[in-house]
């Protein structure tokens, strides 16, 4: 593997990993937001029921 | 000093308990000895290489033996809910740290005093005259292990898989102690004196002092109900 091969391997892995982490963050965040919305909705319906 | 008196009281209690039942002491002792046997089978040690490898092998044995001791360190308190009682009492938690640390230190030293000469016998080493220095260095290294180990044993007390987690967090942090002790022991075995390894000894002592202080100060937060 020539020198540029190693360079692209390194850069590829690094930026790939960062992108994967970024997407993982966004996905976890939207899941959490959904959960929060559900909890809040449930709380409100509880309030209404009372 | 109030702190030391309290620590002494707690230590006395634990020592009496331990010497009556001898659970930890015996298991640690047999485990340490067993490891020596395993090393003999695992490593094909020609006689001239043994002295070189002795510090590393001994310290591997002590690390694992010590971890056994740490795992059982707070066992008595956990079993009978004594921990809550201890924490409710007006005892300084720094004293609890000193007591537990000293307990593990004493247990490990008792094991080491037997295992080191045993190593010399089993592996046919000649340098019996160096044993006092060897023991002194081992003491300092064991102190470092017990200090950091006690803090982390308390930190991992409420964790799942605590027996696995403790070595996992402890060993990387122990690297200065491991390196320093092995370098000092190696120098003594090769040349009969520390010589160039003196900076390592200073590092070891520094480590002991720093984390002893940190332990006493931080134990308030470490051990909570």
């Amino acid at each position, binding site marked *: *593997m020539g*020198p*540029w091969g*190693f*360079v692209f*391997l*390194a*850069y590829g*892995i*690094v930026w790939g*990993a*960062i992108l994967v*982490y*970024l997407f993982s*963050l*966004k996905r*976890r*965040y939207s899941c*959490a*937001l959904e*959960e*929060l919305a559900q*909890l*809040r909705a449930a*709380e409100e319906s509880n309030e209404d029921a009372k | 000093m109030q702190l030391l008196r309290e620590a002494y009281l707690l230590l006395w209690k634990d020592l009496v308990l331990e010497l009556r039942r001898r659970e930890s002491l015996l298991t640690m002792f047999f485990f340490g000895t067993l490891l020596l046997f395993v090393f003999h089978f695992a490593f094909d040690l020609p006689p001239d290489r043994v002295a070189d490898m002795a510090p590393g092998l001994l310290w591997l044995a002590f690390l694992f033996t010590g971890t056994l001791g740490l795992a059982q360190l707070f066992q008595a308190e956990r079993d009978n809910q004594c921990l809550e009682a201890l924490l409710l009492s007006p005892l300084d938690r720094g004293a609890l740290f000193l007591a537990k640390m000293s307990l593990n230190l004493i247990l490990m030293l008792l094991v080491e005093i037997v295992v080191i000469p045993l190593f010399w016998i089993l592996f046919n080493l000649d340098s019996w005259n160096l044993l006092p220095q060897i023991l002194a260095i081992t003491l300092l290294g064991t102190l470092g292990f017990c200090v*950091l180990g006690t*803090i*982390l044993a308390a*930190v*991992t007390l*409420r*964790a*799942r*898989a*605590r027996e696995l*987690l403790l070595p*996992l*967090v402890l060993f*990387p*942090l122990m*690297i*200065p102690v491991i*390196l*320093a002790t092995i*370098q000092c022991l190696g120098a003594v075995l090769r040349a009969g004196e520390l010589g160039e390894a003196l*900076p*390592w000894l200073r*590092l070891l002592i*520094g*480590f002991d002092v*720093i*984390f002893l202080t*940190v332990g006493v100060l*931080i134990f308030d*937060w*470490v051990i*909570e109900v």
Partner: protein
Amino acid sequence: MVKSVEKTKRGTGILGALAFTAVAVGLYWGLVQAPPDALQGDVQRIMYLHLPSILTAYLSFFLVFIGSCLYLWKREKRDDNLAHSAAELGVLFTALTIVEGSIWGRPTWGVWWTWDARLTLTAILLLIYTGYLMLRSLIDDENRAAVSAAVLGIIGFLDIPLIHMSVYWWRTLHQPPSILRPDKLPWENVDPAMLAALGVNLLAFMLLYFYLLSLRLRLGEVRNEIKSLRLSRGAY
């Protein structure tokens, strides 16, 4: 309350845009603009990743330390969130540093791994902070987990100078006069064009780091809110 949330979202968005622009510029500068190294050739360009990565990792672990200290002192969830988030990012960047170092080492030294001081230290750092994350995940009680992690975060950070010293001494004593040279930073006789590329990439990494950190902190805040809601409802 809604307005401040909106502002934060916009701020994060701007930071993200800045970060990615800087990254793109850095990529160009590192891969195209900067000259190849006299000795190592183009492989040396990995340095534009490696050095910023490790510096980012160190910054991250310093933030873990700060967050841990603040949390033990004031017990505010926000500080615990900082420590946890910084630890996660720190582990990411440390792992990347090791991979980059290894890939750089292969053509330079002929081996994928060597126990030289720098790589060894980075590996130890990775072990310590992975342990931190494992500790957090293995303690069920939230508050205990936070306190225990804070103690570990402080002790880990305090130990690092000692680990640094011991590993460096160990490697210098044992370094055989062989072909394997330690990973020396080419500070002497550095081409200013290289330094410029390094600077740009460092800036890019910092911006990217703070962008990722802000996203991760936001996630932590939402999770904390979920937990406190659950707690107040008496469930879980």
